């Protein structure tokens, strides 16, 4: 296995021309199953309040633009504030995460030093700690520092990514030749300069992957904001939609907003996803993680 090739896997040359029908059918059924909820949410978001509960669920309604404008004006556009917050948490968090992973993974992958394996295993063991085991004391500690319910309380715990460190470690040891580092040292370059000018550019595809995984991970996170945040202007989109949904239990009129909100919230991620999967190596993925 070569987990570091970033080229798309090419299709195998076909000998015979006939189609393998059973596998094709099985895959098509699988695709249908995965697309049904998406198709439903697309359809449902076009329905106005009365249509949602009265017309056939898979037929289009007449209220899409209305739903979008109602969603946009709901509580002075708090929905877009939630989207903005998510973009900020995920963007800034993933950027910092890639930077920290770059330094940490490079150190673990390209240096021999005392305690290297211990540090590595310790960080990986962090993966096993259930989220809530950390979230409850993290919240209490944040409160003590007066940071609970702040942007920091969301951002800071999202930066360290054990997977990111792990990925960069693999990437650094495979993609950054030791000879090159040695040569740079001979030339008298400082370690920081070697890292920033030589190693980081060479590790860039790996760092992009770390960024993307962490971006998706933070964007999709629910538990952390649910525990940390109380002020709904700081909510990310996941928590915002949850509160909207919870209110819908008493005001079903909000359901159309929730549905439209879900659709709009998924679009950026799916778009990101379609763009990146073109160069996103499947091989790298398997050596990696869904956070």
């Amino acid at each position: 296995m070569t987990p570091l090739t970033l080229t798309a896997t090419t299709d195998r040359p076909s000998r015979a021309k006939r189609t393998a029908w059973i596998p094709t059918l099985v895959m098509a059924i699988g695709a249908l199953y995965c697309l049904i909820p998406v198709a439903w949410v697309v359809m449902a978001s076009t329905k106005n309040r009365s249509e949602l509960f009265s017309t056939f669920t898979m037929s289009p309604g007449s209220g899409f633009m209305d739903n979008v404008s109602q969603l946009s004006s709901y509580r002075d556009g708090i929905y877009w504030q939630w989207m903005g917050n998510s973009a900020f948490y995920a963007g800034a968090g993933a950027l910092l995460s890639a930077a920290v992973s770059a330094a940490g993974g490079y150190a673990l992958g390209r240096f021999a030093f005392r305690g290297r394996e211990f540090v590595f295993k310790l960080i990986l063991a962090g993966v096993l700690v259930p989220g809530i085991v950390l979230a409850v004391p993290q919240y209490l500690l944040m409160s003590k520092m007066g940071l609970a319910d702040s942007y920091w309380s969301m951002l800071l715990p999202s930066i360290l990514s054990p997977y990111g460190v792990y990925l960069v470690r693999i990437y650094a040891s495979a993609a950054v030749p030791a000879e090159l580092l040695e040569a740079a040292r001979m030339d008298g370059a400082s370690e920081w300069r070697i890292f920033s000018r030589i190693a980081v550019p060479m590790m860039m595809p790996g760092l992009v992957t770390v960024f993307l995984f962490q971006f998706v991970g933070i964007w999709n996170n629910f538990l952390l904001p649910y525990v940390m945040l109380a002020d709904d202007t700081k909510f990310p989109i996941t928590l915002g939609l949850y509160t909207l949904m919870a209110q819908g239990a008493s005001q079903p009129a909000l359901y159309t907003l929730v549905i439209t909100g879900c659709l709009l919230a998924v679009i950026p991620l799916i778009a990101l996803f379609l763009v990146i999967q073109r160069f996103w190596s499947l091989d790298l993925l398997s050596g990696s993680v869904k956070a």
Partner: protein
Amino acid sequence: MTTTPLEGSGRLTAGPLADGATSPVRPRRPRRRGRSAPYWFLVPTLTLFAAFTVVPIGYAIWLSLHKVQVKGAGLGRGARAEVWNGIGNYADVFENSEFGHSILRAFGYGLIVIPTMLGLALVFALMLDTPLVRGASFTRLAIFLPYAVPGIIAAVMWGFLYLPDVSPFYYVLRELGLPQPDLFDGGNLYLSLANIAVWGGTGFNMIVIYTALRAIPQEIYEAAKIDGASNLKIALRIKIPIVMPSLVLTFFFSVIATLQVFTEPKTLRTLTNGVSNSWSPLLAIYDSAFGRSDIYGASATAVVLAGATFLLSFTLLRISDRFTREDKA
């Protein structure tokens, strides 16, 4: 679903580690300059690890061994003091049937989710790996797509699809005159929740297994074909044994994910009273910490859950290690 290869957890790591990390640098002559460099590069990682993992765990353990003692009427400064409670909270955890039940529910839920999800992922990966499949890149993408959908949104979408008034499934059942089951009802709730997890996780696991399949040299199939093996035989006798380490790995992470299910039952709770406040272990812990403000008891429960996760993880890793070693021999 969380998936990352741990060291020794599977052969997925064998490639990169073998040519890199396990023999990272040729032994260098000790030099004074730059010897502290790796430590400096690790400072941000270790600082964050200490601040957001080690300290919280330590604090949780500390809390789990204490309780609040209220003096007098419980009013005013110093009326509430944290006092040592020893293993008292832990004793409560094991007596508290709510948490025990949530573990049992998670077990039942996992029993549905894990075989279904990994079975489907394996079947899809094998199908994808068959030559001459039409539209493979589209269907692969479609099955992987739910990975990009946040758990909360997946739960909202499926939640609506489980509601008789808006669901196309109920529409079809009504039209056909078939009975309409309550998908939020006790036993069905397991299936409903499991379905959300299967929907969200199958594609990712499919990709992991498929990647392992792609790494198998084509010559093996050529040889098997010459020996007269059918596609099915090749799948059963060659492909599945070869991807077994990936399956073990995905199994390992599915188990951990099962113990940590939170978002989906929490979201379905907004649609039905059928999901209790302590349906899953994490919901139970959340409820006791923030719902009932018993952070001491919640911490003890969390520590027990973390301990159980570690124990389970190491057991699984040991089994899989032995398994893959036999596999190699």
